[in-house]
């Protein structure tokens, strides 16, 4: 299978030059390679998207998909996995989507450790609503809703994911497609909750990000021990999502560990429910009331 076979004929309405095109390409490449390597079955892939610029990826990938509500990508992913444990469930969320409206779901998704992958398009603004600050926007950012400057420090989503128990934590850069593709493949192959923070600098409402990232992004060295939680945490704190001064911005796998997946707590969850023909033993289920 070729990556372009995963595309659709829908008109792409991202701004010309938007780094989201890079994410789309990496996703197509990662999924087609995984399919060619027989690591997944394309008909069993199910995507979930939220609302925001990122969500448009739903229309550009020719795969089963659920374009849900703003902020609610992760509960839908979780429900899909409970509904059919054979599905390869992949969530795409925006940073506002995931860390403002849906932050409680993210915290709990890290705890649950369901076998799903969550990729967050981090552009540090609510772009599709014309550029308001979000939970990952740097302090001092001025926009339509914060003319006096954003008052709070941003959430470091990598630290949040690590502290809340995510078992695969990575960061990619939308403009480094081949590297991002490798991260996506690793995340999807990982058994448990995988989180990739994808830096996707908005070229309209957060213009200073792209030159900064092009200058400061570096790949995490091979010597980084991905099974060392404290090393991962220290690496995650190297950049605080601000732009005041130059600081190295690491990309790559920060942490990977293994623990029982969410789905394993139900011995009855083995096959897709829709393949089970249920028969009710009425006299058996009513016996306790006699």
């Amino acid at each position, binding site marked *: 299978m070729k990556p372009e076979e995963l595309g*659709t004929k*829908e008109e792409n309405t991202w701004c010309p030059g938007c780094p989201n095109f890079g994410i789309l390409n990496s996703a197509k490449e990662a999924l087609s390679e995984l399919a060619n390597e027989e690591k997944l079955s394309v*008909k*069993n*892939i*199910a995507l*979930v998207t939220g*609302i925001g610029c990122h969500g*448009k990826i*739903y*229309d550009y990938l*020719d*795969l*089963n*998909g*659920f*374009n*849900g*509500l703003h902020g*609610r990508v*992760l*509960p*839908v*992913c*979780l*429900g*899909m*996995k*409970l*509904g*059919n444990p*054979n*599905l390869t469930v992949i969530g795409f969320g925006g940073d506002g989507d995931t860390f403002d409206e849906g932050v*409680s*779901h993210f*915290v*709990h998704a890290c705890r649950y450790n369901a076998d799903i992958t969550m990729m967050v398009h981090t552009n540090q603004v609510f772009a599709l609503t014309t550029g308001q600050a979000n939970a990952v926007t740097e302090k001092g950012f001025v926009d339509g809703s914060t003319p006096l400057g954003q008052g709070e420090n941003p959430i470091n989503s990598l630290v949040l994911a690590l502290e809340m128990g995510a078992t695969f934590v990575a960061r990619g850069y939308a403009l480094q497609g081949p590297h991002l593709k490798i991260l996506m493949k690793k995340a999807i192959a990982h058994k448990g909750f995988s989180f990739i923070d994808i830096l996707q600098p908005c070229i309209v409402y957060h213009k200073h990000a792209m030159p900064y990232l092009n200058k400061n992004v570096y790949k995490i060295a091979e010597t980084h021990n991905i099974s060392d939680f404290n090393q991962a945490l220290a690496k995650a704190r190297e950049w605080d999502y601000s732009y005041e001064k130059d600081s190295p911005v690491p990309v790559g796998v920060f942490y990977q560990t293994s623990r029982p997946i969410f789905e394993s707590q*139900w*011995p*009855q*969850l083995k096959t*897709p*429910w*829709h393949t*089970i023909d*249920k028969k*009710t033993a*009425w006299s058996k*289920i*009513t016996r306790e*009331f*006699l």
Partner: protein
Amino acid sequence: MEKTILIGGAAGLGSTVTSHLIGKVFCSLGYYVFNYRDYPSLIRGGHNFNILKVSSNPVYSHEYHYDFILALDQKTIDIHQKDLKKGGLIFGTKETEPIVQKLQGPKILANDVLVGLLFKHFGVALDVILTATEKVFDQNADLIKKAVAEGYRSGSQKEKLKISKPKYFISGTEAIGIGAVAAGLDIYLAYPMTPASPLLHFLAKRQLENNILVFQPENEIAVINAALGASFAGAKAMVGTSGGGFALMAEGLSLAAMTELPLVVYLGQRPAPATGLATHTGQGDLKFALNAGHGEFLRVVLSPGDAQEAIIRTQEAFYLSHKYRVPVILLSDKHLAESNYTFDEINKASLAAGRFILANPPQDYQSYEITPNGVSPRVVPGQGPIVRANSYEHNNYGHTIEDGVWAVKMQDKRFKKLDFLKKEINKLNPASLYGKGRNLLISYGSTKGAIVDALPQMRGFRFLQISYLKPLPAEIILKEIKKSGKVILIENGVKGSLADVIKEETGLAIKHKILKYDGRPFTPDFLIDKLKKI
């Protein structure tokens, strides 16, 4: 025979479990029992009580005059003694304490001493009580059985019971639970909220034997979105909550309608606004159930009047939701959910519990195919074709659209189901008539119990119970109202919302209303008294 028994005590002393045991024993002897539960929102202390009405004839309600008061503390006697009938008996700590001390057991054994005393009064054989006790308490039953036996020995027989065929004793919650299982439930998701939590417990406890999955996500927003994810994946999903949680689900309900994914929502009402009276009953969420969610979309709202109806209506909820791909709200309340009802038999509906999923889907499958009845054939991911669910307005393939032509097509498609739904619902007894008379009582839901029990004591009244609130069986209601003298709405609420709903759909105003909004259900006495004044 007709007896009313109150058992009360501080929370944690055991009145609920004991009332259930007493009810079970009477049912095993062939009697009809209605068990009403009244408790505040606290875990230890306060005052909880249950009222058991026991009768040789079917009974669906309670009263506040007692033949027996079984008191686990002095407070119970202080509060309820004034309502003891002439010749009524009180068994309290005076009777239980010496026995509990003799057995050197925990204070909670007082319950079992009371059970022994009560059934000795009726001359029930000790082994019958002990067998029922064993069924209720599978652990530590030895000491409990000893306490029952000691209580039995210390009492004296004053009456004799006629024994007949054992009856089924079931709460509204349990009925909804087995109705859901009979309908082929796969996944139940809920965040705790009284009075819906007992359903979460009931299904969770029985998940392995019934091959269902039960999970409590982080909040109600997660609950409804996860349920839709599960539904998309092909599972039969149900969520449960009360008014506050349902408010959080409102956006998800709108999503269910837009994505046309089957979903059953169990809404157990309690008095509101806000936290309201958390452990009490009310019907103030009718209009909310009918209107929750942004945008204009189809839904079904149905409401059972007792536990037997709850089984059938729950099955219907699943059937309609899956056949028509619409959200269905099963409207209950604390009174239905937490009361126990008695039936000679409990039956399920003979509805097909099918999944309504295409077995051999075409490769060029359209998730939102426009069909004559508006229902697109359903396929789930993994079957082969691409399956889409979209919260944004979409075309037949589920791709996002912006143009007005598709928007109109899809809005019309979704509403096209209404006529077909109406026809289907007309076959499901959407409204039921009880009694004979020129005057008409109208109500829905749990108020049925007190009304049908009051009806034989009133002349000239019949009762129209409305079970489908959306789509409303307007023709039936119109016909019945037009041929009646006085028409009276009965509702556990402040304003009588059902009257507004009926007016909106039939144009007819209902002048008389009997409303109760103290958080407590109607009793036949209360209704008869109020009706005399109209």
